[in-house]
């Protein structure tokens, strides 16, 4: 259910502008990898290249290779739609579909792709996904109500349930807790801990405590200055990054002495 990601010499451009330069890293299956770094250093941009979501932005392009279990995502024949079915994504702001009920939101990945699913299978999938996202007990009595009526934290867990309902191999999370209160954040962190058993998880976060709590490995990105490309500075076990990093910039950043 989970796959290894390997990134080789990856450059990301927005039209002519080089946004992220020369990233090399490997993400092991069934682990949580956190990306930290200051705003604008290309963490989110890089994350989106892992399922080709950056292509949604006009002018964005990539040089280099991203291998998922040896398959290069940027092979000319690769269909981005198939990539995204394997690599799911949870966004910064919860974005349930406003026209759909809670149940339909969970089934969105199936229904939107025009796949047929029997009612019992659908019910089973909804329950399994919502249980997987720790949301089942809160919404089981109102599955037919609109998803937009939930609280922010519940909406975000609904989005996670929606992402895991299509059984991806990898889940990318782009600052999933930045719009949430501490209690909802805790619920999502607990959830990441459980999801790790089945999925490969990559999470972008601005919260270093969160990175140290949930992740096994941490990648620190930095930017030399405005207009310069972002770089991967250091990538190591989370404990090493936070206790004994090998680069001075990393230590400055994680200890709050940055800039």
């Amino acid at each position, binding site marked *: 259910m989970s796959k290894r990601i390997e990134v080789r010499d990856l450059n990301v451009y927005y039209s002519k502008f080089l946004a992220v330069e020369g990233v090399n890293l490997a993400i092991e299956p069934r682990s949580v990898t956190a990306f930290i770094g200051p705003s604008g250093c290309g963490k989110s941009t890089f994350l989106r290249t892992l399922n080709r979501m950056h292509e949604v932005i006009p002018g964005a392009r990539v040089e280099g290779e991203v291998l998922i279990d040896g398959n290069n995502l940027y092979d000319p024949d690769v269909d981005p739609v198939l990539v995204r079915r394997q690599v799911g*994504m949870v966004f910064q702001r919860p974005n349930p579909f406003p*026209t759909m009920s809670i149940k339909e939101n969970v089934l969105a990945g199936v229904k939107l792709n025009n796949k047929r699913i029997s009612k019992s299978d659908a019910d089973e999938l909804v329950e399994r996904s919502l249980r997987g996202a720790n949301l089942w007990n809160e919404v089981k009595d109102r599955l037919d109500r609109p998803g937009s009526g939930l609280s922010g934290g519940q909406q975000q867990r609904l989005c996670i349930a929606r992402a895991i309902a299509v059984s991806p191999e990898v889940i990318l999370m782009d600052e999933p807790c930045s719009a949430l209160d501490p209690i909802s954040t805790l619920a999502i962190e607990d959830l990441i801990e459980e999801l790790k058993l089945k999925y490969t998880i990559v999470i972008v976060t601005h919260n270093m405590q969160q990175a140290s709590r949930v992740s096994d490995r941490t990648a620190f990105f930095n930017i030399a200055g405005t207009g310069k490309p972002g770089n991967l500075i250091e990538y190591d076990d989370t404990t090493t990054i936070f206790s004994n990093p090998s680069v001075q910039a990393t230590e400055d950043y994680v200890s709050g002495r940055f800039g």
Partner: protein
Amino acid sequence: MTVQTERPVEAAAPISNSLTAGRLPKSAPWTILVVAIAVAAAVFGVVSIGTGAGFNWGGALFVGALLYIPSIWLFSTLVEGRRRAMDRLVTALVTGAFLLAMIPLVSLAITVITLGAARFDADFFSMSMRNVTGEGGGALHAIIGTLFITGAAAIISIPVGLMTSIYLVEYGRGRLARGITFFVDVMTGIPSIVAGLFAYSLFAIFLGPGTRTGIAGAVALSLLMIPVVVRSSEEMLRLVPNELREAAFALGVPKWLTIVKVVLPTSIAGITTGIMLSIARVIGETAPLLIAAGFTASVNYNLFSDRMQSLPVYVYTQYANQGNPPEAFLDRAWAAALTLILIVMALNLIARLVARFFAPKFGR
């Protein structure tokens, strides 16, 4: 502690609140309005007695309202100060502008209803003008023609307009998209008679000069309708948050399915409203239909052959070619105008209901 216990004693002293200011009583604006109108009425009364003419109610009300604007400003400046006075002045001006805009609307509605009611009967909706030279007759053929021609125009324009707007919002980049936007803007400004001439000459090329059919009228109307549909749907599609598109893409949904199943359902309420308004815009067109669809006295169910009457053209022909007695023709024209307004009103109501029915639902 001692300081705190002393404080209430201080506050109990009768000191005026420094945050208060002079304030006109609530009834003041109305009182001033009534007085202003009374003054104007007195002046008009003196004039009407002096000249022997009748008392001019409309003039008195209008001048009274005009008099109210400087008076409320003056009183407010004296009592409340300049900021509030400006607020009162602008409130009076804005309300006045609204009432001014309502006058022609209300007057038109009253005129059409009173004059149209005379022939707003069963005959009017069940008979055509075939072999009718004087009284009697109806507008059945025109109602059928209007519904057919507008329906055909909608069937042509909605897919073309909607798909153009989808192209512009979801796919269009660069020169082609800019060009389309430009020409759509130009098309919104086409005079309707030009659209009629275009459709007429287009059909004349293939079917010979003098061809007037319902479908030619529908083509003319769709030329007017497409730009409106494109612009309104484009606005609505742009309102759909990009996050929803990204959410669908991240689930491995292809782009076209994302558009069909996420973007369109989210914006369907606004799109329907825009389409209904565009229909309301073209259903009252006279000039293009006069040229392209012609006029006739008989019912015609076939869009593709022979002339077809429509309600606006019916109003025009009844008014322009009055026979004997002329009142019968005028009454029919007014009744047809009333029918047309009611049809447009019904369309607007349907659009509102549809918008409410399809709108994304919120709530727990």
